[in-house]
């Protein structure tokens, strides 16, 4: 190595190091209170909307500086846990109910009822607001909502001469008919997320209010339903290992007849399977045993590490206000947690150029009005979901009988709930 070569490398290294060193974040101005606001993968689609909303808020509150950080959906939990461990948690975080309740288990979140006015709280769907509750304490403010509608591949139903299912109970028989006529699958009730336990409730299952215990007859009915789905060929074998994304992939490839998903999925289907989009019919979610539907809520929570909880909740109330949520819905196909937003033109006027989405929107709004968050926040939710899934899968594969599956599932479940309440 020559001296010239060495000095060239050294110069390059020093130059890069200088760039890396000087490109550091300047501290916020002293007269401003910084509020850090984390969202879950809303950028870049909501960049314009959120930047404008933040600018409006800062204009109204000149001593507040909102720092918006958009985090990848899949890794929000890890980033937040790392931040909590390092005592650098954000003032506001956008989380799903399961992770929110997990943090609430450790009393890591502020109760919004201690910071928000009753008039503000009255803005939200009462059942959705109450669903964010663990041990009598509210832990999050509902932001945008979603509810599953049915998206059908009409061509497969026509080929099999099968009707659209009216109830969840119709699906195994219709699934068998479609499988025999076309070779395609009908349904993909995935085991990721909370779909299994939500389906348990939709099939008539209940949890005891005090300690979330299960009723044997409910469990037996759910296990029998999943076993029938699997044995009838209505669901693909990959349902045992793949998540909801696989359901969407199969539907977009024309191999799945029914997709139960949010209305926003129509957008994905139109983008990725434009030829299939013409064969789609949308409908309401097939009726459940208790004639209700599930509402999925995305929350805003304020961690206890926040130095400015009151100011954080003030911004939460602003960004989740009926007017702001109606404005947000003009940018992305989501539904508001505030019923007053549903009177905005985006929800009352129909777009004639997009009839499928308009139908989906109408079904979704109707479902929001009568639906509820079916799954209560539970301690050790992940473990409970895992034991439920494990025994359901064993029954589907006929490794164990329905009776054995029911007994084992309840024993495993109770062991966890007992430990939670000891």
């Amino acid at each position, binding site marked *: *190595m020559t001296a010239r070569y060495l000095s060239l*490398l050294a110069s*390059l*290294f020093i130059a*890069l*190091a200088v*760039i*890396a*060193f000087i*490109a*550091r*974040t300047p501290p916020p101005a002293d007269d401003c209170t910084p509020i850090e606001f984390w969202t*879950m*993968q*809303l*950028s*870049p*689609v909501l960049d314009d909307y959120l930047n404008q909303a933040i600018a409006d808020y800062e204009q109204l509150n000149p001593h507040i500086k909102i*720092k918006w*950080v*958009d*985090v*990848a*959906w899949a*890794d929000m939990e*890890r*980033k937040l*846990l*790392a*931040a909590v*461990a*390092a*005592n*650098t948690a954000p003032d506001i975080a956008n989380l799903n109910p399961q992770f929110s309740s997990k943090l609430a288990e450790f009393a890591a979140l502020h109760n919004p009822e201690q910071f928000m006015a009753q008039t503000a709280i009255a803005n939200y769907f009462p059942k959705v607001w109450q669903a964010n509750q663990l041990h009598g304490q509210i832990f999050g403010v509902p932001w945008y909502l979603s509810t599953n509608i049915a998206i059908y591949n009409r061509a497969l139903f026509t080929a099999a001469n099968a009707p659209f299912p009216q109830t969840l109970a119709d699906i195994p028989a219709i699934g068998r008919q479609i499988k025999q006529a076309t070779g395609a699958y009908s349904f993909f009730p995935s085991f990721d997320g909370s779909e299994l336990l939500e389906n348990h409730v939709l099939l008539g299952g209940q949890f005891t209010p005090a300690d979330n215990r299960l009723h044997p007859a409910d469990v037996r009915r759910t296990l029998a339903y999943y076993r029938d789905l699997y044995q009838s060929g209505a669901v693909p074998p990959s349902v045992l290992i793949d998540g909801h994304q696989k359901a969407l*992939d199969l539907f*977009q*490839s*024309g*191999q799945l007849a029914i997709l139960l998903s949010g209305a*926003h*999925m129509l*957008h*994905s289907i139109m*983008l*990725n*399977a*434009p*030829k*299939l989009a013409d064969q789609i019919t949308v409908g309401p979610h097939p009726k459940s045993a208790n004639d209700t539907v599930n509402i999925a809520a995305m929350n805003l929570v304020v961690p206890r590490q926040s130095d400015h909880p009151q100011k954080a909740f003030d911004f939460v109330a602003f960004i989740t206000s009926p007017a702001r949520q109606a404005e947000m819905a003009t940018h*992305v*196909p*989501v539904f508001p947690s505030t019923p007053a937003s549903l009177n905005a033109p985006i929800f009352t006027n129909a777009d004639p150029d997009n009839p499928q989405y308009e139908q989906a929107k109408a079904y979704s709004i109707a479902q929001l009005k009568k639906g509820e968050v079916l799954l209560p926040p539970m301690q050790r939710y992940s473990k409970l979901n895992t034991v439920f899934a494990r025994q359901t899968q064993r029954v589907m594969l006929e490794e164990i009988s329905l009776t054995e599956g029911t007994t084992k599932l309840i024993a495993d479940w109770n062991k966890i709930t007992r430990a939670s309440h000891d």
Partner: protein
Amino acid sequence: MKNNSNQSLAIPHFSLSAMPAILGWMRRLGQYTVLASIALLFIGPFLWLLSTALKSGSENIFQYPPDLIPDEPTLSNFARVFEAVPFLTYFFNSALVAALAVSCNLLFCSLAAYPLARLKFAGKNALFLLLISTMMLPFQLLMIPLYTIAVNLGLNNSYLGLIVPHACTAFGVFLMRQAFLTIPKQLEESAYIEGLNHWQIWWHIMLPLVKPTLATLAVFTFIGVWGDFLWPLIIMDEQAKFTLPLGVNKLAGTFGKDWRLVAAGAILSIIPTLIVFVFTQRYFISGALKNAVKG
């Protein structure tokens, strides 16, 4: 008749003499078929990614059976990537971080490896064992303590925060130590006789002889830093400082994924890795000792 009998005799004679060549040719054919099949298996996902990136908006991405050849190939998806996200900013950030991380890793790992390979001091083996034992710990386990240290040092949300964890790795020290061990001691002893000190020996004798290992370590480090997603996600908040993996992830929106865009972004982001690999692959099979003999 005579001609015919000669011909009939000649055929088996010719066939027998050609048999080893034919067998060799068939063996090679078999080997290449197996190798090509394995290669296809590995590059299959990449080809599907490329096919998706080249498909036009009117084609079904998920059609079954899959169609690898686009009906109406287009480059517009690549252009749309630049419109959707500040791709060049992410590219610059990744390049800056990768260049510094690779440089630091080569420098510090070779500095740390030299005494472990060549000098005699108490606890050398224990220190080495302790060092390589850290390779057994998954990053997920180290993530939170590392983040806490980075925050305390004021490195969060900075390029330095991205570089420091890659600046000296146990794997790099291990690799460089093994490379130094293969160099004949006589070379070092000759250098002592010539009056060189340890620093001069490290720089003038040892490093030139382990250039292939340095290149290998550079490629491994580059690939690791360029594709790292989790650490930049944890430590970086400002979008203007996002590296490519974080930037490409933004193409997959919450309310609808356009897979053509995601595929085009992924293809663009792996091009530098391929370039680095192409320019350094010739060192991979070279041995350090071979260079020493040449020198």
